[in-house]
């Protein structure tokens, strides 16, 4: 990042952590995996 203050310093200093955002998707997948497993069990049970 530039050493001097710039006109868009406030934007640059509030940059999100995109790696973390992508990492969070991992949690969505594991959650969905759980949901579908449960569903699978339920359907088996019904059958």
């Amino acid at each position, binding site marked *: 990042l530039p050493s001097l203050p710039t006109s868009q310093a406030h934007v640059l200093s509030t940059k999100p952590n*995109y790696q973390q955002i992508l990492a969070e*998707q991992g949690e*969505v997948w594991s959650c969905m995996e759980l949901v579908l497993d449960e569903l699978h069990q339920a359907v088996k049970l019904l059958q």
Partner: protein
Amino acid sequence: SVNPMAYEAQFFGFTPQTCMLRIYIAFQDYLFEMMLVVESVILKKLDGLPNSKISAFQIRKSTEKFLLFMKERFDQLFSKMEEVLLQLVLSIPPKVLLPEDKVHEQYPYSKEQFQALQGEIHQLQQQYRAEASAGQALRAELEEQKAVQAELEKVLQWFDGLENICREHGTGNFKESFAFLTQNSKKLQDVLKDVEEKSR
């Protein structure tokens, strides 16, 4: 003190004194040369007059006498001429500024002002460099965003795909159909129970 006439030298391309010196030496050379010519002509004439009792030495004396006089007058007249030319013709009046020096009139910067201007330029250069790298950082983040958006949209598409599959197999709203399934299975269980009792 001798006025170096540096400003005039800047304008003329030579110092006025140099110009006058050159003229002085040239004139003096001519005078001397002419006198030599005069003397040689007279001597030649004398050669044609065998009976004349005039010696070359006498002629040389005459030449020196005339030349000495001319030289004195020459120096006097020349210094007057030089004085007039240096004052009236080959000099630049004190209140006159040469066109190429207009900047000195327009921008009479003191050392401090000059340094302040340099400092300001340096500051602007720094600022520009900072803005340039800020621009690069912003464009880099835009690139990053593209990749992240693509990933997230893929996740959503996955959800869409999942629901499309369910829909394709007749389960529009999963919750309702699951409730419906559960109800049916309960009825089925009841019916099953009924059938068993009757069969007993």
